[in-house]
């Protein structure tokens, strides 16, 4: 099968790749770049475990071909703490407020859906810094979690929102 060259930015770094036309973005990220934090739970866009940001928009990377990401800027879970600071890679442990809140609120169990939920929550809070419980539940219905019953995830998103607003207020 013919290979297609692609060039994109992933977590702030320039990346060149060669992919089959049928290669999904999620498989490119996982297999060629080793960014295994983006997970495959259904590969048909229902579970959200593969959620990433493409040019700032929340995307299920199993529903996008790698060739479609040519020229785009992609942020994966591995790049979240970086993008939240000055855009430069931070030391491990420099967590995004959403990540901090997910830890603090026990908002995960097996962890398989977690990167997708963290990305979705981050995208939500970028659009709406102070969502209600109902808005959080509406927006996060894009993702599935089989372990938590969502209670602590919703709490974490509210806590993250408060942390982020506090940060903005402090500026």
């Amino acid at each position, binding site marked *: *099968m013919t290979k297609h060259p692609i060039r994109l930015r992933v977590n702030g770094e320039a990346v060149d790749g060669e992919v*089959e036309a*049928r*290669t999904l973005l999620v*498989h490119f990220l*996982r297999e060629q770049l080793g*960014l*295994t*934090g983006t*997970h*495959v*739970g*259904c*590969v*048909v866009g*229902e*579970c959200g*475990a593969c959620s990433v940001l493409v040019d700032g928009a929340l995307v299920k990377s199993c529903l996008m071909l790698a060739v479609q990401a040519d020229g785009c800027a992609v942020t*994966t*879970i*591995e790049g*979240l*703490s970086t993008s939240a600071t000055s855009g430069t890679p931070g030391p*491990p442990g420099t*967590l995004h407020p*959403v*990540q901090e809140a*997910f*830890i*603090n*609120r*026990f*908002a*995960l*169990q*097996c*962890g*398989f*859906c*977690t*990167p997708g939920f*963290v990305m979705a929550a981050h995208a939500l809070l970028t659009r709406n810094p102070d969502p209600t*419980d109902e808005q*959080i*539940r*509406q927006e*996060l*219905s894009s*993702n*599935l*979690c*089989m*372990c*938590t*019953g*969502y*209670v*602590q*995830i*919703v709490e974490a998103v509210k806590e993250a929102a408060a942390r982020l607003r506090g940060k903005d207020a402090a500026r």
Partner: protein
Amino acid sequence: MTRYIGTSVRSKEAPRHVTGRGRYVDDLTLPRLLHACILRSPYAHARIVRVDLTRAAEHAGVKAVITPADVQQLSRPFKPGRYAAGLRVPIPEYASAVDKVRYVGEPVAMVAADTRGRAEDAVELIDVEYDALPAVVTTAEAAAPSAPPLYEALGSNVAWQGHVAYGDVDAAFARADRIVRENLKIHRYSSTPLEPFACLAQATADGMTIWCNSQSPDVIYEALAEALGLERVRVIVPDVGGGFGQKIHLIRKYAVLTALMAVRTGRPVKWIEDRSEHMMAGGHSCEQEFDVEAAVKSDGEVLALKIRDTDDVGGSVSTLTIHFTNKLNNLFNTYKVQHLRLEGRSVLTNKCPVVPNRGIGKPGMCFVWERTMDRVAQELGLDPIEVRRRNLVAKDQFPYTTPNGNIHGSGDYQALLDKVLANVGYDEVRRRQQEQRRGGASRGPHRARLRDGVQDPPSGRLLGIGVVIGVEPGGRNAARDMAIFPQSKQVLGAGGVEGATVKIEKNGAVVFTLGSPSCGQSHETTAAQIVADVLGVSPGRVSLAGTFDTALSPWGVSSANSGNNFHLYDVGAVHGAATRLREKVLTLAAHLLEADRESLQIDDGIVYGGRASRAGGDGVASRPADSSTAESMSFAELGTIAYSNQALLPPGLEPGLEATYYHSHPHADPLMLPDAQGRVRAQYTFSSAAHAAVVDVDVDTGRVRVVRYAIVSDNGTLINPSVVDGQIYGSAAHGISVALGEGFVYGADGQLLTLTLLDYGKSTTLETPRIEVEHYPIPDPFTTLGQKAAGEGAAIPSPAAIASAVEDALAPFGVKVRHLPLSPERVWELINGVGGHFSRTLTGTNGSVL
């Protein structure tokens, strides 16, 4: 000292998961790795006539194909295991189909290629000729004498029939004022872990290493040894993306196929199941039908129960009786009833085999009890909560032994009901409900169905409340099955055995190894809290040494993420190992500090002699450089000596600071093995909880919205309350989703119609209510810390709670809720008194249109 036990100590697992640094099987790779893909049966029932590999073998990148003939030639079949207790003819089962296929999705062949894409391409090029046979999809069809048998050797699809009986059921029925009868059904569902099955196998010089997301690594260990005749098998379980029972049993087939492919190709092979494969062949919970008769007194006392249980076990004999035998675990629920007969029938059908799944038969058993209690109340004109209260085991009866031998260590069931009623505002809900039913205007086609004097609510919505109670058994005792099958001489898994190792490293860091894998239940966090308290060190300095590995982990028969085992065996083992290590630390420190051993104290990783003043918790020992005059020593100092300086060790003390302890439940007896009456400890601990569900039913669409869901739960001593909360939220959410319509739907030809999570109807954040939990812990008198189980718990009573609430909401229509799921379609049919409400195959799922 319990400084950390009982507090929500920060999660040790979460930091890696929120940063994408979890490590699951699919994240691993090896040099020269091949990718495997499986060809599955498109038929529900067919004979395999011919397999032609010509086209597939020629496809670019393909390295090998394994056919049914290869499987038969190169591997041995699994022996019927304990899940198949009661199987009357030993039927060998291979890792793939060999002669016939018995369900859509049954594995037929495996391809390995250099990329996953090429393996998938090649699977489509395998030509299989099938001779299609008639499929039997419902138990009624399958049990008919004329039905085509799935296994000719059995002669019939009714593969097992039997019963258990306790007390004098006939005498109790003779004494009854009334017999209450009901037919109940609970449908097929699963827990659909987000990470599907995954195996990575590498043949070694003398055996096999497999990375596998198994919940019960012993199953994989035994399967590879048995099927491939391997003497050296190493099973490594990295992070697991959810289990819930799904990853206990059928996964062994895929471990064997992947390992066989690794042998055949001489290269490491990875196989990752995809979502639709998991939906069709990863295993389902069992569709169960119950004919219930309750012998009752006019005052609501239940004297006895007779139950006829028909289990649809699908297309395999390998889990023939698990959904029956697991009902022994909560056979009497929370009730003091003394007489009960449970008849069982396991019927084979051309559907996915059933597997252990979050409670196994226990949600069904709880459904029987709680629906029956509501029905008894209705028929006697009593309050449903009062009927439950009349039959509950009383607070002063604990420890309470059920008629079938389970010992409920502690509990206060009345208090759970009191609290949940208060929390949900029961009286207020009833008041609002009455108001709603009084006002109203007539509208809609269902108007004629309303009972006399009841007004159609103006909003088109009906409020309902259901209150139920249940137990959550914990700690597996596999000898249970001998109660039903006394002919089985093997006592595999009697009681429980599980190990743990705790070590203080040379630098003072504390690491531990558990005997069982975690699937997301925070084993590391919880165990670290126990180690921290026992050793006298902060949890921040305690960590898990590594993931489960049969070559390194101290494992035993209970080493499984199954049976709600963690609280009993892992906690007992890690507590025992830490206690043993503490003794050694004190022996060494007493010698070095020249202090009386009894006078020593440990705080924050520093051992203080009797004369010492505390260092203030900064981890630095207050001692002069000359150890002979020291008054305290840190773990790092002790570690350095223990591993490096024999001259300073007390005579006879083994060097090193490490201890391993294998825990067996000290209170496993009495009734670890069944007595003459068939009484046996099915499980060892019994958490309990009352659930109150408030629902709002849309009369026009049949959609059920859960507006409140309150739980009061007794899980014994809480080690990490937030972790326990999470287990309760998650299991409740699953049971609620099941009741509202999540489920598998088959066509009459045996084709699975719900191949995706959307079709299957899994609840999202929108359908799942904000579950409210209050803890009411009553420590168990028989466990290490008073702890009880917390895992599958709330999935057991929640389907019954929703059923009760929906029936209550629909009371103006006088309809009975007998069957799950309560999808909008089903509820609409109930409201309108029409439709195939009892159809057994084409049942609507949540939001799907058939």
